[in-house]
């Protein structure tokens, strides 16, 4: 469970990115976070990833208080999260297999376990046949699938997806959303940051709308965010 209480974030330049944000996300939920540029979505993601510290307020993720977490526990905390980005952030000099395996190698997972987990993840995202391909040989949708496989290979409790369909066409976007739903069905909490009203409407899940740092709406499906 994620509990965000009275969360404020003011950057050094004086910009108030988040103002008294209160959000609770239950285990196994699928949540969209919507908002325009500058609404505070990315800041919220950074705070959940513990890339930045809040000015005030509390963030509790699965009983861990991020605001009081010593630095040395941060890597262990991040292993319980999976992250997917709009620009995929794959390593261009590594194959599909190596990109997914990389996530396990760098946290010291034994090679034998990696050899079992990576093919399983590639099956889940439907890329088993392309395990030898390099990122530049794949379509945008396929690259995002690799990024999702990499995010999932360490069995995270929460998957954070920052504009995962931002660089994809409508068809690929819906495929990725379908994949995220499949992952959510396996019990992983999925938080998707997006500004696509179309996707949000089609998915029919909980939507939290942010506007200039405040929670404008957390009323339910569809949201009230106007893309224009």
């Amino acid at each position, binding site marked *: 469970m994620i509990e965000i209480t009275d969360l404020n974030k003011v950057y050094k330049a004086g910009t108030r990115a988040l103002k008294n944000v209160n959000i609770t996300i239950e285990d196994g939920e699928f949540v969209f976070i919507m908002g325009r540029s500058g609404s505070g979505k990315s800041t919220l993601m950074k705070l959940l990833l513990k890339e930045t510290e809040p000015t005030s307020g509390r963030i509790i993720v699965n009983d861990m208080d991020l605001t009081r977490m010593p630095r040395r526990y941060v*890597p262990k905390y991040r*292993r319980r999260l999976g992250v997917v980005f709009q620009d995929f*952030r794959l390593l261009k000099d590594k194959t599909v297999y190596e990109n997914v395996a990389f*996530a396990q190698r*760098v*946290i010291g997972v034994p090679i034998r376990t990696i050899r079992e987990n990576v093919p399983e993840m590639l099956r889940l995202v439907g890329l088993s046949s392309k395990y030898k391909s390099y990122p530049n040989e794949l379509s945008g949708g396929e690259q995002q699938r690799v990024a999702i496989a990499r995010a999932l290979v360490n069995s995270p409790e929460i998957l954070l997806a920052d504009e995962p369909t931002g660089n994809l066409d409508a068809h690929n976007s819906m495929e990725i959303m379908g994949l995220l739903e499949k992952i959510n069905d396996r019990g992983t909490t999925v938080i998707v940051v997006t500004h696509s009203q179309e996707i949000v409407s089609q998915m029919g899940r909980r939507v939290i709308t942010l506007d200039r740092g405040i929670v404008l709406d957390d009323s339910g499906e569809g949201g009230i965010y106007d893309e224009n």
Partner: protein
Amino acid sequence: MRISTFFYCLKEGIKNIGRNIWFSLASAAIISACIFLFCLFFALTANVQYMVRMAESTVGITVFFDEGISEAEILAIGDSIRERSEVKEARYISAEEAWENFQKEYFKGMEELAEGFADDNPLADSASYEIYLKSIDDQAGMVEWLDTIPEIRKINYSSDTASGLSNFNRMLGLLSAVIIIILLAVAAFLISNTIMTAAAFRRDENKIMRLIGATGFMIRAPFVVEGIVIGFVGAAIPLISVYFLYRSAVAYMMEKFGILSNLMEFIPIQEIFPEMVAVAMMLGVGIGFVGSFFTIRRHLKV
């Protein structure tokens, strides 16, 4: 640490060198130059020290006493000489022993010539003490002290050998220290730049590692490995060259200046090399480690 993690860090460190080959080569070359000079000075200093030690055991002070002084008085002065802390050994040579030594040295094969002096020792007043010091540096002070003893007629010593070797060694040590410190600073600076370039190459990878939950150790280790490998290679190359160079140089000196072999005695390569390897490796690997560790600690966010 798992063995697979160790090999992962090693592999990534070597990959870093490959990605950044020119900077890495430049760093290794500067370390090589630094360690080559260090080895030269090390060999020189060690050999000069060796010669000083040899001199300390062979170059002594000889004191002669006034005529008519009794043997008991001479022995009493000898006791007070032995009591001095800087004295390693003081050997009494009686007038008879002096004459015997003289005969052996100068009447070899013509012993009959010396027979004329059988009952009349020409060195009757030449009882002496040969004094050997713990350090050749104390020679001047010792001579000064011996000069204050009224019964001592003459003091023989070689001031040039003592002070010359001592001063040369001191100057050599100082010069080598200055040059090595400057070169080490340049090497550390170059390693730091190499590591910063490597970190820039791997910026995306490091960011992903960080977000996946890799520890600071796992992110930094490949860079430290890179520094250590550069330092190791930078030390190994000059050590190999110095090994062969030293052997040839000693052989050449002994061949060309064999006449000076009494004065110049070199430390055999098998004696000097293990110590040289240990110190040079510590320097090379140490500078690689320190340069990379502090650079990556300062510049890489984990």
